């Protein structure tokens, strides 16, 4: 996926004026937020589950090499293959190689954010293979030639009306007006692809070290068809998704659906352990897992380790008022919203994603809903610190901060400066007591008036009160 985070400012303004996007965002936001609240209200121990999940993840990250080794052994023992990819290039090459070996012509895909992260679809289609996304949201954006705007609902930015038009144009069938008929049409179109697929690629919500299994949750069952009907099943996953055993998985399954969509559980929870064994009624002939590092081990050793707890539920996106205003595309890469604003600079570089850590009010709502308690605001602040040290901030901001720092460190100067400013601004405010436009503060006054000061600062007036 092309990296366009450098255009965040322009893209966010365009997004703010997109009425379809606004409708779609409002609808999904209400659904997700209310749904999550209702779901967790049913689980009195939800807070304890969050704490447990955090503890399990921290333990795994502390011992990641151990659990990855155990996982690899277990996969191998069940007849599968594990491939480690250092970066996106290696990951693409490995998957491409497996597909070529399998003489693949048609490839079905379940939803996988890692496959987006490594830019897999372009590599496969570039090699002449037909790639069919089978998650409804992914299928919609594939038809539209777009990228996901949300990590759980990739087509969340589209209204139902837009999907009706899209399907009518691509399927050459009479337009369907309801969600049910649209789903039915996608389903029947995809059915044939499942049967023709040579390779099925899915992501993994969790990898289980003890059993060597990969686990996916879906609501459409498309993941099951993708991985059981093709000859070869390839799992693409980040290295951090491994958990020790099935008991640990149970904790996360209780958190995931409630945090993501407000469901008690997703419709399908599917475990895959190796290829088809003797006596199995179905399953692929070969089973491969491509474990992608792509910057993760670097995060493991630094200040951003907590970010590797992320289970990609999307709750931080759903509750972020900035995401809710501009949607996911403006963020410019695979991962949007709060989690994306941390991951994108770390994976793609601080410079090209300058705006992402900054375009946040640090309101903390993301952290308060995160099922694994990632301190997202503090991480964004830490990224700003790294940008500051690398002098990536606009020059004007750098100087403004330096001046503020100097003045604020000299109380007499600070209070004198404030006293002058209070008088000037109070004069400008006049009888209306507000200022409509002000040089040096245009970014404030471009959208709002500036309430004018009352005339004398508190610190000026206080000593007089004390004397009287």
């Amino acid at each position, binding site marked *: 996926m092309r990296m366009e985070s450098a255009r965040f400012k322009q893209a966010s303004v365009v997004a703010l004026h997109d009425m379809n996007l606004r409708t779609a965002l409002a609808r999904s936001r209400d659904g997700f937020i209310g749904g999550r609240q209702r779901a967790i209200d049913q689980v009195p121990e939800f807070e304890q589950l969050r704490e447990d999940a955090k503890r399990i993840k921290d333990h795994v990250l502390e011992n990641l090499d151990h659990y990855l080794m155990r996982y690899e052994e277990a996969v191998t023992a069940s007849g599968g293959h594990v491939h480690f990819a250092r970066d996106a290039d290696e990951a693409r090459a490995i998957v491409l190689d497996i597909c070529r070996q399998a003489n693949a012509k048609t490839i079905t895909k379940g939803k996988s954010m890692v496959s987006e992260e490594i830019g897999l679809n372009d590599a496969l289609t570039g090699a002449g293979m037909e790639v069919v996304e089978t998650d409804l949201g992914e299928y919609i954006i594939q038809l539209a030639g777009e990228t996901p705007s949300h990590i759980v609902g990739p087509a969340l930015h589209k209204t139902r009306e837009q999907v009706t038009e899209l399907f009518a144009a691509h399927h050459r069938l009479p337009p369907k007006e309801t969600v049910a008929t649209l789903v039915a049409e996608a389903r029947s179109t995809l059915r044939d692809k499942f049967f023709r697929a040579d390779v099925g690629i899915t992501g993994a919500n969790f990898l289980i070290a003890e059993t060597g299994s990969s686990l996916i949750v879906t609501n459409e069952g498309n993941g099951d068809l993708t991985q059981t009907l093709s000859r070869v099943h390839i799992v693409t996953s980040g290295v951090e998704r491994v958990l020790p055993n099935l008991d640990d998985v149970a904790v996360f399954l209780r958190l995931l659906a409630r945090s993501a969509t407000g469901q008690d559980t997703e419709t399908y929870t599917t475990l895959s352990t190796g290829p088809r064994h003797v006596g199995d009624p179905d399953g692929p002939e070969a089973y491969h897992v491509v474990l992608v590092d792509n910057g993760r081990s670097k995060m493991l050793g630094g200040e951003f380790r907590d970010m590797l707890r992320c289970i990609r539920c999307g709750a931080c996106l759903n509750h972020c008022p900035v995401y809710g205003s501009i949607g996911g595309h403006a963020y410019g890469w695979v991962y949007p919203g709060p989690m994306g604003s941390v991951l994108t600079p770390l994976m793609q570089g601080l410079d090209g994603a300058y705006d992402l850590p900054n375009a946040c009010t640090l309101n903390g709502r993301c952290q308060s809903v995160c099922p694994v308690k990632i301190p997202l605001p503090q991480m964004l602040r830490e990224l700003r610190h790294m940008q500051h040290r690398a002098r990536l901030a606009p020059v004007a901001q750098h100087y403004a901060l330096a001046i503020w720092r100097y003045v604020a460190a000299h109380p007499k100067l600070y209070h004198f400066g404030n006293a002058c400013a209070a008088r000037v601004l109070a004069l400008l405010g006049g009888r209306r007591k507000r200022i409509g436009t002000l040089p040096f503060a245009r970014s404030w006054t471009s959208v709002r*008036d500036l309430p004018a000061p009352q005339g004398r600062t508190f610190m000026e007036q206080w000593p007089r009160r004390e004397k009287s």
Partner: protein
Amino acid sequence: MPTHPRVGFFATCLMNLFRPSLGFASVKLLENAGCIVEVPAAQTCCGQPGYNSGDFDGARALAKQTIVAFERYDYVVGPSGSCMATIRHDYSELLKDEAIWHDRAVALAAKSFELLSFLSDVLHVERIGAQFEGVATYHDSCSGLRSLGIKGQPRALLAGVDGLRLVEMRDTEVCCGFGGTFCVKYPEISERMVDDKLANIKATGADTLLGGDLGCLMNIAGRAARTGQKLRVFHTAEVLAGMADGSGIGGESKNESKH
């Protein structure tokens, strides 16, 4: 707790420059509750703007300055959840690698409070005899809400104000789009967020907006003025101190919106 605790009053930047009357309202509330209030002249900014902009060194210097100015008091109190959250939570983080300073930061944090939560949680003030005619809605500012757990305290205190009816707005816990420098770095996104907030305020039918942080209140009041939405805006402390009879934040006063 001493009967008359000595309180170092933290004069937040925005209050000091834009709304000193809020400072005097705060002091009045503290004194009425039995505190001896002092205002150290050596104080300036808590350091949050630098901290949130990534200038950790600058923030550290201001943190130390604030610690020195205030550590002699029984309590440090200021009329802002945002500034007080910086003192309570961020100083110890900023100074974690400097042993002595870290300890001093932790000690200061333990006795630093946002004004309304101090009145409610520490001084156990239950009822303040104040009067305010109107229907108000309350915006929960993010730092106060999520970093300091301020939610029930201002509402409980406001419940004792004669003539005031409090109605809750939808999404009262959602950010208003201020976010410190965010609102000037990304004015268009901020505009959408504050418009959403104003729509929620309007839907309640309230004529007054109350809150606990001047930044948010100036943002909302400024946008209301720009878009012509009639709304008087006060800091909660001004209403509780009986000092909300003059001009509201942004100029809209009690009398103006009456007719």
